[in-house]
């Protein structure tokens, strides 16, 4: 017989039909069905093949604890593997495939692994594939040969390669009370908290609120449980201070009473509505948390306990009562506690024949006995199931007399025929979140034979069955006989998903694994996607028995997040496209419109070249450089970090953070400044402009802007709190255009109003204010390129207007825009340093910037910069390089003195920056080499074996172009 749909009331809406496919075959189900319930309603019992032995597997549970019935969902090109069919809600057109089978689910070649069971025991991989190569079938090399086949045979579903196009979002929430779980205990807690007026959030994993109270019968507060649930939920819905979230699994408990949860917003829909996320990642910060997470029923470990048709008793009852699917026609029950009798009654009520109730206990309660007689069928107390029969589905099982105290089996096995065996091995409170936020270990309860929540390390309480309180619901005693395993030979599974048997656990013990942590890792027990929800306690019990210790002494492992699998997309959430935001200068659209090749500089986008059609990058920057050096060029420098330093102590502050003096800087003048770190190494450089007595505009390198700001704030707050200085990031306040070249002054003179720009009015490092295109500008004459150059600053909102005016004014003078490549070329020719040289390992002396180290005052880094190792003449120091073989140089390449391309040794330094110098007509570079200046005029060899480059270079002064600076002072 196979499972079938019944006419019993429940959650499915029979009025509407949904068509879906499983392994290519079309089925019909109803709204409210999970994939598991819908397939069972269609008579399907075989859902997958097991991880290691490829044994046929069916549905064991009805929820998140499902280890067996894992499927892959396919949406277009996107595959999502390892989803429990018990949690997948069906929608029109859903496409699911089974996993870990080849070529098909019912005929699986890999099932041959079952014959090699002994071979594939615990630690098989470690023993066979690790260690030295001895003979042909051992060791790491053998692994390398076998890996492809094993990876294909063992494992779960296959992840897809197509880009996940679904939308995910994050939601930040705050509340006074967060209730996790909406069973009666959770609903009561939410109702109470809401009554106190606080903000309440209630989370429920299932699409419907109420937990098992919706379908398991019984009474709450004097009324029918299902009715009570309905009333209570609708009461909560009306309250403005309560937010109810269904399909939302709380999976992580973090510091600050922060709970992470995933809401499956549109997973149950054929298509998400426009703008609707598929899943929403909730980060909930709660003052108090109530954990009403319920309890999981445990299987019993016995031979053949994994055969399709063996199901948890509560799951079988739920399929019958909640999903209107009778999972079997002739049902037997195997239990060690009373709760299974209530579930047997529900199954009978739904139309099943209860053929037998097998209870390993000799004596049972009156309530249980009464329920058993109502169910009809045989009651076999003091018995146990020792084997199951059938192929891909259960046809019957064997029982024997059993003594729960000694574990001994007596008498002849008897066969009972049944198509479903409903099993109950007791209940484990779902303490996962409690354990994550617990102080110390979970507490063993000998009566329940289960772990209770530990003492809280954060502000939470556990209620209901999660706290071990089973007094609600059917009211039966759930305390089980302390038996987890029936030892009768044959494969008895503890962890269904990872195919770990009771013998594997004992083997691990025999091989010396005594710690529960090691046992877990060696056998992989509880380490699959279900995280051992059904296997942890039985596994531990078997381990404890092997060790001859009581369970609490063996202890359990602390649970970690996530409680249930979480998609990476949900965690990434709204970070769409690139992971970081873009930073754009005011002239960005112009650059793009001119065909500039944009280059990422941190978050910024900067033009690398403005390439003409057909031009290579090198051709473009050579053209831009030549034009700038012969006429004029303009570059967008808006990205430079800019910090306003204001206050009566601003000048003194700058004296402390820069190596050179700024208090002596006149108003409307700029000065080049260098900062060191506390340890004496070079940190950052830039110019600072004195705009007024107490106002300085500091510029930093683009890359270090944020770090420098933070560093200055640190010194101000932590070491100099009495200084009256305000620091403000004004990087975005100003648009900057640097215009350089022999014609730069002529261009400015033709376009700037309100000020002269001649050498007298605007000398080197001078600042003037005027207007361009009716917009106020500030012009500072300073040069990075070595040319006569000016930086024109305007309000960022006016940056484009000023840029346009400068471009237009420059037309008659041959002005060209240039990008980072030409900028880099000109600075290399001039020997100016950037982050490539100020790399955190170089000192001011290494870069020949010692002239900037003031002796008149202490400054950050001054105390440490003269340490012996930092003043050694033989440190690697800045030099220029000229390629002698006419070939390009590579950044990062090493320099050696010997002319032996094969000898990879004796590096005297490395190259930091390279370009073709249009001015010199050669490939040049900057480098850091031992001794620096002492090597000027000597020959060395560039050695770059990775890129196959070896050749002669001449070491020269880093001032390779216009060393006297005549051009920029002109």
């Amino acid at each position, binding site marked *: 017989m196979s499972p079938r749909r019944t006419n019993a009331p429940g959650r499915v809406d029979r009025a509407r039909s949904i068509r879906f496919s499983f392994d290519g075959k079309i089925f019909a189900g109803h709204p409210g069905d999970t994939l598991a319930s819908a397939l069972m309603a269609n008579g399907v019992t075989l859902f997958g093949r097991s991880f290691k032995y490829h044994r046929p597997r069916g549905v064991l549970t009805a929820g998140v604890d499902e280890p067996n019935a894992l499927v892959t969902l396919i949406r277009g090109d996107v595959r999502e593997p390892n989803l429990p069919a018990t949690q997948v809600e069906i929608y029109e057109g859903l496409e699911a495939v089974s996993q870990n089978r080849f070529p098909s689910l019912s005929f699986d070649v890999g099932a041959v692994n079952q014959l090699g069971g002994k071979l594939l025991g615990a630690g098989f991989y470690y023993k066979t594939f690790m260690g030295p190569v001895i003979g042909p079938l051992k060791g790491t090399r053998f692994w390398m040969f076998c890996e492809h086949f094993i990876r294909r045979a063992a494992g779960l579903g296959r992840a897809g390669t197509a880009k996940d196009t679904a939308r995910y979002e994050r939601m930040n929430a705050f509340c006074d009370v967060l209730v996790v779980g909406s069973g009666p205990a959770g609903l009561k807690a939410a109702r109470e908290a809401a009554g106190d007026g606080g903000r309440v959030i209630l989370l429920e994993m299932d699409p419907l609120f109420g937990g098992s109270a919706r379908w398991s019968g019984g009474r709450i507060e004097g009324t029918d449980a299902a009715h009570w649930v309905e009333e209570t939920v609708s009461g909560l819905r009306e309250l403005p201070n309560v937010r109810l979230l269904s399909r939302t699994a709380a999976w992580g408990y973090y510091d600050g009473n922060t709970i992470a949860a995933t809401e499956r917003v549109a997973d149950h829909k054929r298509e998400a509505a426009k703008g609707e996320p598929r899943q929403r990642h909730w980060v909930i910060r709660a003052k108090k948390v109530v954990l009403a997470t319920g309890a999981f029923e445990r299987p019993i470990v016995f031979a053949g306990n994994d055969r399709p048709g063996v199901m948890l008793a509560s799951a079988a009852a739920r399929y019958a009562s909640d999903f209107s699917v009778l999972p079997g026609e002739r049902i037997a029950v195997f239990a060690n506690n009373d709760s299974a009798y209530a579930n047997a009654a529900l199954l009978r009520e739904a139309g099943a024949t209860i053929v037998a109730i097998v209870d390993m206990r000799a004596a049972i309660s009156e309530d249980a006995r009464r329920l058993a007689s109502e169910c009809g069928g045989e009651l076999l107390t003091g018995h146990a199931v020792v084997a199951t029969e059938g192929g891909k589905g259960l046809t019957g099982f064997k029982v024997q007399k059993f003594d729960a105290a000694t574990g001994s089996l007596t008498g002849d096995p008897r066969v009972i025929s049944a198509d479903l065996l409903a099993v109950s091995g007791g209940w484990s409170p779902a303490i996962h979140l409690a354990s994550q936020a617990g102080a110390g270990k979970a507490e063993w309860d000998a009566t329940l034979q289960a772990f209770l929540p530990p003492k809280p390390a954060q502000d939470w309480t556990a209620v209901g069955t999660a706290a071990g309180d089973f007094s609600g619901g059917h009211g039966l005693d759930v305390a089980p006989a302390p038996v987890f395993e029936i030892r009768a030979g044959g494969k008895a599974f503890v962890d269904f998903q990872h195919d770990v048997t009771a013998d594997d656990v004992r083997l691990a013990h025999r091989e010396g694994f005594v710690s529960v942590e090691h046992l877990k890792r060696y056998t992989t027990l509880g380490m699959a996607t279900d995280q051992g929800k059904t296997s942890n306690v039985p596994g531990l019990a078997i381990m404890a028995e092997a060790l001859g210790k009581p369970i609490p002494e063996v202890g359990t492992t602390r649970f970690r997040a996530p409680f249930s699998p979480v998609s990476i997309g949900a965690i990434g959430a*709204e970070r769409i496209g690139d992971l970081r935001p*873009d930073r754009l200068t005011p002239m960005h659209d112009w650059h793009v419109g001119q065909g500039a090749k944009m280059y990422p500089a941190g978050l910024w986008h900067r033009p690398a070249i403005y390439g003409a059609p057909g031009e290579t990058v090198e051709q473009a920057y050579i053209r831009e450089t030549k034009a700038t050096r012969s006429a004029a060029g303009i570059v967008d420098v808006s990205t430079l970090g800019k910090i306003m330093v204001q206050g009566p102590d601003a000048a003194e502050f700058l004296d402390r953070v820069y190596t050179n003096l700024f208090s002596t800087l006149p108003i409307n003048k700029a000065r080049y400044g260098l900062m060191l770190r506390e340890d004496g190494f070079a940190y950052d450089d830039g110019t600072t402009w004195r705009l007024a007595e107490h106002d300085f505009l500091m510029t930093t390198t683009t890359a270090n802007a944020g770090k420098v700001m933070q560093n200055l704030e640190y010194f101000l707050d932590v070491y100099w709190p009495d200084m009256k200085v*305000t620091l403000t990031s004004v990087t975005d306040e100003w648009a900057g255009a640097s215009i350089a070249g022999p014609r730069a002054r002529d261009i400015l003179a033709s376009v700037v109003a309100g000020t002269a720009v001649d050498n007298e009015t605007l000398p080197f490092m001078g600042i003037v204010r005027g207007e361009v295109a009716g917009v106020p500008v500030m012009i500072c004459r300073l040069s990075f390129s070595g040319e006569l150059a000016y930086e024109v600053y305007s309000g*960022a909102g*006016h940056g484009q207007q000023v840029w346009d005016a400068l471009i237009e004014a420059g037309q008659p003078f041959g002005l060209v825009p240039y990008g980072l490549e030409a900028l880099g070329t000109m600075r290399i020719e001039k020997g100016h340093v950037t982050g490539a040289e100020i790399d955190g390992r170089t000192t001011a002396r290494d870069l020949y910037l010692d002239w900037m180290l003031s002796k008149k005052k202490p400054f950050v880094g001054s105390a440490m910069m003269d340490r012996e190792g930092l003043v050694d003449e033989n440190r690697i120091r800045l030099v220029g390089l000229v390629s002698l073989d006419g070939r390009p140089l590579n950044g990062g390449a090493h320099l050696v003195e010997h002319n032996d391309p094969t000898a990879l040794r004796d590096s005297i330094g490395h190259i930091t920056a390279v370009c073709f110098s249009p001015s010199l007509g050669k490939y040049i570079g900057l480098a850091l080499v031992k001794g620096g200046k002492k090597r000027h005029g000597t020959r060395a060899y560039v050695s770059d074996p990775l890129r196959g480059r070896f050749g002669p270079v001449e070491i020269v002064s880093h001032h390779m172009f216009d060393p006297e600076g005549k051009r920029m002072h002109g």
Partner: protein
Amino acid sequence: MAEQLSPLGAAWKPGRHNVTGAAPGVVLTETRPGSIVQVAAWPGDEKAVIDAIRAVAGLKLPDGAGGGIATEHKAAFGFAPGKFMVVTQVEGIEAELLKAIPITVGTVTGLSHGRTALRVSGPKAEWVLAKLYAIDFALPAFPLHAGRSTMHHDVFTQIQRTGADQFDLYVFRSFARSFWTTLCHAAEEVGYEVR
């Protein structure tokens, strides 16, 4: 003076987007104030600075962290110890504040170009913003006219609640287009109108 160009460029798409009902969940606007000015008081001089802001802008700032005040055309709020934002529709408030606040009391810093003002209003404003920021937008926790400094990943933001369902966001100009795109994306679920 020449008008400031918006940093939003082509990302600013006026009109209704994914609005299914009668009204959008949120309305998104770039408010383009004439002046955005930061005022900082030296420790102990906060009162003098608050008085100066009142004298110049007619805005009476309440005492206390994150306190603020807003009218139709101007607003001010505290966003850090001793630091305040003053925002007005008219240009030139910076010069007036400079006159009223001597360097012995504090500093005045013009940010009219450096910060972009974005307004999120409508019944779903709290919901949309909660997607982006890890702060509590509920009215009891974020009272009317109060200011907050926070961040969405790398995008530093100052936020003032200027209505029960209205928030004014100040972001760095260079991030504005990227952030605006993110904001529109977040608002798509509830339907939004760009004005």
